[in-house]
């Protein structure tokens, strides 16, 4: 296989990583019945916090320092941890306001997304457009030598590997473990969960905060690797909304969510390639308005939603033989968690 093509695939996987981590975090939150709409702002503010923390730990508070020799490892780890903490705090506001104060989750999320983006711009001013530590590549021994899979998946950095673990881990958690069943149940039918002895609101806190912490990791993944440093406007502007859309596209299922994120990154790669090199088919250059391509992912999302809501997927499922049908159902099921956005109260 063409080396250049494999490199492209590898970069698609790499570039999708923050989106994968953020949408997995959001999936965890929404599966528990809470929607964290602050994703866009959270990503920007955690990217800022993670970058500044990493830079300060590595090079000190002096913004003019360019001592790149200093060991960056402690800074990177510290940066990710600080970003997680900030993401978790933002999520905690969502959890408190919806569970304790019974405020509307959409409203609070919306306000937070705007507030956090502006806060990040303000606090990050000093640190905009200066270099900082970057997460290094770390090819996985043995696995990196696999044909095809090695170069695409295993010659990446730790954050990319983390995204694989998160996807598989969340799938296993949700669909194979007992606590995972409780996790799904509080998002589907909290009354039934309560009747089985599950503490609905306490678990919701846990999953909302955990989801927020992962959004923090995603934010740090931007500023510490994929779009290193801070810029104005933020390089990941808009990606929070995309992550929210990917969760819907993915039907709240980790495998479909990761596919959605990769597909999105691939479409982005294609469109930026065409922007750079133009589109030529069979030696003929085709005139093309590339701005249209930016809309492609959204078109894809709308088509998916149409397929889901028209019941086409359900009819397709019924054509399959019984055992296959059952296996496919949990993957293809595309209904949102039933209790999403609602509060639970013991009467």
């Amino acid at each position, binding site marked *: 296989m063409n080396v250049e093509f494999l490199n492209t695939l590898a970069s698609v996987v790499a570039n999708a990583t923050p989106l994968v981590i953020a949408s997995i975090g959001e999936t965890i939150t929404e599966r528990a019945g809470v929607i964290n709409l602050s994703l866009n702002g959270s990503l920007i503010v955690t990217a800022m916090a993670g970058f500044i923390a990493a830079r300060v730990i590595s090079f000190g508070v002096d913004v003019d320092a360019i001592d790149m020799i200093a060991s960056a490892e402690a800074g990177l780890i510290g940066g990710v941890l600080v970003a997680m903490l900030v993401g978790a705090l933002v999520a905690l506001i969502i959890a408190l306001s919806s569970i304790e104060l019974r405020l509307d989750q959409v409203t609070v999320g919306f306000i937070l997304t705007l507030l956090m983006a502006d806060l990040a711009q303000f606090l990050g001013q000093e640190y905009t457009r200066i270099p900082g530590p970057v997460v290094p590549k770390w090819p996985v021994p043995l696995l990196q030598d696999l044909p095809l899979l090695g170069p695409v998946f295993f010659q990446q950095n730790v954050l990319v590997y983390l995204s694989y673990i998160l996807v598989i881990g969340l799938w296993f958690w949700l669909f*194979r473990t*007992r606590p995972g*069943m409780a996790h799904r149940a509080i998002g589907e039918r909290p009354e039934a969960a309560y009747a089985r002895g599950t503490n609905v609101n306490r678990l919701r806190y846990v999953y909302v905060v955990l989801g927020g912490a992962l959004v923090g990791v995603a934010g740090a993944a931007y500023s510490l690797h994929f779009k290193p440093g801070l810029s104005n406007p933020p390089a990941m502007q808009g990606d929070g909304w995309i992550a929210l859309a990917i969760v819907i596209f993915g039907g709240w299922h980790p495998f479909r969510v990761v596919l959605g994120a990769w597909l999105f990154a691939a479409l982005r790669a294609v469109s930026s390639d065409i922007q750079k090199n133009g589109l030529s088919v069979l030696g003929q250059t085709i005139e093309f308005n590339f701005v249209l391509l930016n809309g492609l992912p959204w078109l894809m999302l709308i088509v998916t939603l149409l397929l889901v809501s028209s019941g086409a997927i359900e009819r397709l499922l019924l054509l399959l033989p019984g055992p296959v049908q059952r296996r496919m159902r949990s993957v293809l099921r595309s209904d949102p968690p039933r209790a999403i956005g609602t509060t639970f109260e013991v009467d």
Partner: protein
Amino acid sequence: MDIELRNIHKRFGPVHANNDISVVFPAGRITGILGENGAGKSTLMKILSGYQPADRGDILVDGEASRFSSPEDAIEEGIGMLQQDPLDVGAFTTLENFVYGRPERVLPDWQAARKDLEEASAHLGFDLEAEAPVERMSIALRQQLEIVRLLALGVKALILDEPTTGISAEQKQTLFAALQQLAHRDGVIILLVSHKLEDVITLCDKVVVLRDGRRIGEEDMPAPGETDPATLEKIKSQLVHLMFGQELGPHVRLDVPLDKVVLQLDNLNLRDRRLQIENLNLSLRQGEVVGLAGLDNSGQGLTMRAICGLESVSSGRVLLEGEDMTNRSYRSFLHRGVVFGAAGRLEEGLIAGLTLTEHMALVRSERAVLDWPALESYTRDSLKHYDVRGEAEDRIEQLSGGNQQRVLMALLPANPQLLILEQPTRGLDVESARWIWQQLLERREGGTAILFSSAELDELVAYSDRILVFHAGRVHEVSDVAATTIDELGYLIGGEFKQV
């Protein structure tokens, strides 16, 4: 295991929902808890199963006082409740629902659980499939799942809240057989909460009657298989007497002259995703009442909606006073005095979040700018006239079901041509239902034709001039309602058209 409730009290604001209730439930017996809506049955059962604490009083399990602060506590003590809408998770499979809530490790032993589920299901004559997704199962199957699940958790006392609502006659037989087996062979305490006399008489060993939050009395039921109509009638009237404090009077059919034809259905063909109705013919005259019988989703709803433009007609004609109205919009039917009342009061009929005055404004006010003071006083008058317990500024969902239905009556136009009502008395106690019919029959005297569906045979027989029985889209007309019997209707509803 024996359970004793001693001097249970529970208040909700001014309402004394349970007033000093004491009762004993011995092992191996099926006890019916009978009472009309608001008698306190549900409250008492919620207290017993840990969903609500009592204000005062004791629950004694085998003579020892117990306190439950959650349903989980109650299950620990061996008391489990099957809710009317079973508390399962739709997105789960049968097996997942069975496993969730069991004291399993982080990684459940799916094989062992599946074996337990299948054995328990077979033991009770149930038909549960481990991998079936619950959201695609009928209420009856979901009940079976909950029963099996609760028993597997070690429940020795099973409370069932109105379990026969929404299930077929055959499914009811399966359920009752399983409950009898559980009680009489396995020694489980069964409590059946119901307002259906027939069900408690067929199934229960003993019936406790509640009225206005108090325990009014207790009756032993005849042995299963008792068929002597005189004995059954006597027990029925005793129970009715306990429930309402008076016996139901016989219904007198008003002799309204039937006038010109209002509605005519001409070879109507309808279809939806599940069923198909072919060549339906019907003519309905002024002052006539036609009842639609049948199990849920047998075609009554589809027919009623198609008649007033809410579902499309595949072929055939709907004639209103001779004019072809086929596939016209509901709005144009409304203009001609045809009004539809859906079974889902809060889902389709009323608008949760709006006040009673706002509801009134929607139907009564033709003006662009609303005259609120006038509307408010109009609403107050009509609330008084229709005896609604509620204020003009209350939001509709704050009212009880019976009062919501009264508001719906108040919202109807004074003299409609045709009323199409889907289960107009569903979920109402007998007094409220009777009041609703009084209102309807008054309108009928003014020449209104009425088409209604109901799940209660008594109601259909009492008020209809003719009955159409639906079964899986097939329709059979019973024209001599006075001569029909419960048996005849039962056969028709079950699809046994030949036996009649």
